[in-house]
């Protein structure tokens, strides 16, 4: 480890390696690992306890499966029911390499597409495993009664999604995430009835307990009574989802947070690639300062809608129907004639931002571009368009009050998914032994960019098939020595939680939590959003630090701890976002290349496209918490491509 501060912001530590992935032919690695992982005698399982935080696809599936296997599981979520985890919002579908359509799909092709889609910043062995178990997921979900779309003959239907050339996406109308989650939830509730899983709803994890270098429990707050409780176990699983809400406005649910993973990070778990965020191009634009969240519109709209802005900035407030054809700029079709409106998410998003930066953005605030269906309506008729997109049009109308059959839709990119998360090895174990991380919460198999319909696949793969198999290797060495509630580590963890709560309630400040969150969001979006540059990121770090300092002295949280107190809940989450935001900017700053969702203005080709720099940056960044007043430490995990050749993306 060098002691030099790089850029005055971080240090570089020793490289890190994934020691668990077996070597050899990629097709055999997962079987090999499963075989090598130690077994736990069924009679002993009852004596082994596991805490699972999060009941989304990853956590719900993991808790249910571990319960079925006979472990003693405690599951936690902050909503009033495990069924409400944010996985429920996924619309599009889930990939699986079943090759039901006989169109040449295979495990290998799914593997290849995912590595390439992630812009070569994911591990080959992980991604291959993901592709491999994908088809088991479909079998499992169908057996649970998940009502996937079917053809008239009774077979499962597939569609192609996100520009992929094979039909491998399984879906349940526009509610795939909901149906999959309900399947996992029902499996979980079955285990609750069996007594193998104890469910704690409306409980928020606020601290991780680490004893003798192992994760041994968590501190949670009962969000109804305010009681701060200690839960101890042999292993802890975090499946707490993504942190897109650091941007304040995102397509994530209101409660999505980084607290669980961030607290673990502060206790020693490395944070992987925090700056990798995915920005989705087709969301409904912000309508005003009061806006609380952004709504995603399915990407399929780009199949038929044409995206444009007025050529002249002064036309931006005109009724779009009054703007003649020659005054419209169909900029995607102009710049990317080959792909047109169908360029990948990151490119479409960035292009929209540039138009708005140039003052041509439409709608209130000038942050929007038109997605126009008049041409296709004229060509195939209103009824056909309605059959294809009717429900989306209705949703748009419901939210904006405008009728997209008459007036062009307005869309704008929004933060959607975070590829970054806690760093884990092939076993999904973090750098703290006994702490496992699954689903969107880990730094995941998606590299620098996630392909559509693959997050659901990853969550369920982790939860049903990977984690239950790898965690047993760890549990086989247990039960670990019992930890007493009065152990110093436990007392310290609990105290840090209670004193934080007291600090919020006693800091009789003047600004509300939300106003800080909003300001942080503005900073992040401005400087660490769709495109990033050195100067902006430095400014952002600076501003976040100032904001954080002010936050702790001037935030206003009313009420008490011993009751439902939503401002208090948010205060804790925003405090952690304020620390995460800084790390994201530092990560974005240190990665002086463009890759996937991360676009550094300094690293682009002559015609303005993203340029990867594999010689320097073909690694995953695993950040270690440096301490309260110290800078973070970067550990690089080199990514080795044995099977897939690295190529530069091009969509011209």
């Amino acid at each position, binding site marked *: 480890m060098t002691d030099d501060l790089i850029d005055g912001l971080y240090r570089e530590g020793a490289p890190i390696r994934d020691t668990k992935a077996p070597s050899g032919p990629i097709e055999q690695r997962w079987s090999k690992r499963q075989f090598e992982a130690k077994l736990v005698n069924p009679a002993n399982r009852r004596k082994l306890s596991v805490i699972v935080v999060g009941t989304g696809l990853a956590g719900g*599936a993991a808790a*249910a*499966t571990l319960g*079925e296997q006979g472990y003693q599981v405690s599951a936690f979520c902050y909503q*009033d*029911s495990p*069924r*409400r985890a*944010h996985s*429920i*919002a996924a619309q599009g579908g889930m990939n699986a390499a*079943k090759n*039901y359509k006989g169109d040449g799909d295979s495990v290998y092709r799914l593997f290849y597409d995912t590595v390439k889609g992630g812009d070569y910043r994911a591990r080959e062995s992980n991604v291959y495993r993901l592709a491999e178990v994908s088809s088991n997921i479909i*079998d*499992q979900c*169908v*057996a*649970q*009664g998940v*009502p*996937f*779309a079917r*053809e*008239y*003959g*009774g*077979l*499962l239907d597939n569609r192609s999604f996100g520009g992929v050339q094979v039909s491998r996406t399984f879906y*349940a109308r526009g*509610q795939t995430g*909901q149906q999959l989650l*309900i399947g996992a*939830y*029902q*499996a979980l*509730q*079955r285990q609750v*009835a069996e007594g193998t899983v104890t469910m704690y*709803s409306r409980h928020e994890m606020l601290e991780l307990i680490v004893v003798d270098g192992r994760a041994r429990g968590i501190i949670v707050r009962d969000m*109804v009574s305010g009681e701060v409780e200690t839960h101890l176990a042999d292993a802890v699983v975090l499946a707490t989802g993504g942190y897109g809400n650091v941007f304040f406005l995102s397509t994530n*649910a*209101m*409660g999505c947070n980084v607290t669980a993973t961030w607290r673990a990070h502060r206790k020693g778990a490395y944070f992987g690639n925090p700056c990798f965020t995915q920005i989705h191009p087709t969301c409904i634009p912000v*309508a*005003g300062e*009061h*806006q*609380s*969240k952004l*709504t995603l519109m399915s990407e399929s709209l780009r199949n038929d809608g044409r995206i444009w802005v007025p050529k002249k900035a002064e036309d931006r407030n005109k009724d779009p129907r009054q703007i003649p054809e020659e005054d419209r700029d169909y900029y995607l079709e102009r710049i990317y004639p080959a792909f047109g409106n169908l360029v990948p998410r990151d490119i479409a998003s960035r292009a929209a931002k540039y138009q708005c930066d140039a003052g041509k953005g439409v709608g209130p605030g000038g942050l929007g571009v038109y997605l126009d269906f008049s041409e296709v309506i004229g060509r195939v008729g209103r009824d056909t368009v309605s059959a294809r997109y009717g429900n989306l049009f209705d949703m748009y109308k419901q*939210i904006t*009050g405008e009728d997209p059959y008459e007036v062009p839709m307005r869309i704008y990119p929004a933060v959607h998914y975070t590829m970054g998360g806690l760093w884990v090895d092939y076993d999904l174990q973090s750098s703290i032994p006994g702490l496992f991380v699954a689903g969107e919460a880990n730094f995941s198999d998606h590299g620098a960019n996630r392909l559509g319909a693959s997050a659901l696949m990853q969550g369920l793969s982790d939860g*049903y098939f990977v984690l239950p198999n790898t965690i047993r290797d760890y549990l086989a060495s247990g039960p670990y020595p019992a930890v007493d509630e009065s152990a110093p580590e436990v007392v310290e963890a609990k105290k840090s939680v209670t004193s934080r709560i007291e600090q919020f309630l006693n800091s009789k400040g003047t600004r509300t939590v*939300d*106003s800080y969150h909003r300001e942080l969001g503005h900073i992040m979006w401005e400087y660490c959003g769709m495109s990033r540059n050195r100067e902006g990121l430095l400014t952002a770090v600076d501003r976040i630090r100032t904001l954080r300092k002010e936050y702790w002295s001037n935030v*206003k949280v*009313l009420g008490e701890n011993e*009751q*439902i107190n939503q*401002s208090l809940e948010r205060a804790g989450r925003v405090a952690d976002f304020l620390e995460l935001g800084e790390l994201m900017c530092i990560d974005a700053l240190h990665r002086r290349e463009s890759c996937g969702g991360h676009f550094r203005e300094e690293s682009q080709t002559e015609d303005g496209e993203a340029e990867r720099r594999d010689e320097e940056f073909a690694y995953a960044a695993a950040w270690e918490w440096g301490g309260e007043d110290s800078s973070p430490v970067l550990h690089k995990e080199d990514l080795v491509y044995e099977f897939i050749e690295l190529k530069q993306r091009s969509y011209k």
Partner: protein
Amino acid sequence: MKITVKVWRQTGPEAPGKLVSYQLDDVSPDMSFLEMLDVLNENLATSGEEPIAFDSDCREGICGMCGLMINGSAHGPLRTTTCQLHMRSFSDGETITIEPWRAEPFKVLRDLIVDRGAFDRIISAGGFVSVNTGSAPEAHSTLVPKVNADRAFDTAACIGCGACVAACPNAAAMLFLGAKVTHLGELPQGQPERDSRVVKMLNQHDHEGFGGCTNVGACADACPKEIPLDVISQLNQDLRRAMVKGY
């Protein structure tokens, strides 16, 4: 727009509650109903009064977390979730009364937040297919006719919001139950446990203290996911069959 809201305030489960009026002068018709409450809460917090507690998460109409009684209608005047309701559905100067769901099994925890844990326990009683991870057969080994698949889907769309209970004069949760019983009952995978499922779920329903259904139909009118009333009939039919078989 100017709006007056009368909101149910109650500090805790055992505390008494009452309606309190608040004034909002600058409401935009494009705001969602919950954003209107967010703004009100910011105002309250700034002036030193505790914000109104209400549940919401996805704000997309899918998680089922939100749910308010608005002027006597569950989820308000439109057939949608509370989070998908917008202020343009109200008129300038209107007074809006906002209450929590009311049913004995849905205890009010604070202000507009209720405890819907009873729904989870009903699902635990039998709302699942018993299949352990890893033991599933190949997905294509069982065909499902499209009509059954479609009906299963229509009924699986229930988001567990509880509006059906809130709107039912008897505070019965029959629509919620019927939706699950129909969803699993339409699929071949759900057959082995079909008879025991309906009996167990109904027993749990009654045990939780929900009222009995007298086929009023208010539930289906309030359901944001348009779960049709015939699921209750399906539930009754399944129950009758199960009883004949001696469950």
